[in-house]
């Protein structure tokens, strides 16, 4: 079982890296790009046999308390086998 945690800046927080990527894309000629937001991605492998319910609870705690700073960031979790 694997968990994928996507961490992104809240929409209210300025993302200068995303802005720079966006302007670089514009200067490369990609005219259809309206906005770019940059974030972080964590792929977490769980020990075989971990109970799905336990894993969900733990990964949610880890995402909330370690992987994100709730002042500026939010997260989304996906699980796969």
């Amino acid at each position, binding site marked *: 079982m694997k968990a994928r945690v996507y961490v992104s*800046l809240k929409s*209210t*927080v*300025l993302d*200068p*890296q995303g802005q*720079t990527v966006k302007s670089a894309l514009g200067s490369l000629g990609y005219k259809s790009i309206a906005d770019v937001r940059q974030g972080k991605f964590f792929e977490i492998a769980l020990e075989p046999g971990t109970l799905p319910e336990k894993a969900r609870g733990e990964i949610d705690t880890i995402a909330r308390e*370690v*992987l994100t*700073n709730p*002042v*500026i960031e939010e997260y989304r979790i996906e699980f796969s086998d």
Partner: protein
Amino acid sequence: MKFGVIVFPGSNCDHDAWYAVSNNLGRPAEYIWHDSHSLGDVDAVILPGGFSYGDYLRCGAIAKFSPVMAAVRRFAEDGGLVIGICNGFQILVETGLLPGALIRNRNLRFICKPVELKVQTVDSPFTNAAGKGQSLCLPIAHGEGCYYADERTLDELEAEDRVAFRYVRNPNGSLRDIAGILNRERNVLGMMPHPERATEPLMGCRDGLVVFQSMAAALAYRS
């Protein structure tokens, strides 16, 4: 009166802070290793600049889980004086001892230069020896020094006179030009500029000494 300088793996201003206190302020200072569960008998704590734990994940994010930070939190909650400088400020916001966050500089660059600050309040143990509105020239050296907080928090900081320092020419995009803030109880200060790097003429100026002199005065007044 003794100052404790916390040392994390990756701290690199710990010696500067120790030197500023012991040599230029003339008070005893000792190092406290990050895996220590106790602060011993120190009267004030300095969280120095650097790149604690390589700044991995987020600046200060790993440091907040170190054993010594549990002790620093208890010390702060008991009213002890805690100053976080640069990476130390980042650690204090990560631990929640100060509000807001420090994010990537607006221009994406690591900025290393002297900047002019104005002292915004003298009603604190870190600025009592300064004059209100006094101008200080202190070095900054950071890539993630843009102070961010939501509007409500920013309004609260201003209403409660908790902005300690503001930049005269904002170098990093910090909201409302904030360079340093206090907690509600006013015993915890976080600031991005480095007062310890400006404590004798050889360093260019000694404008930063007033922060440590203020702390010494506050501690003397308490005892």
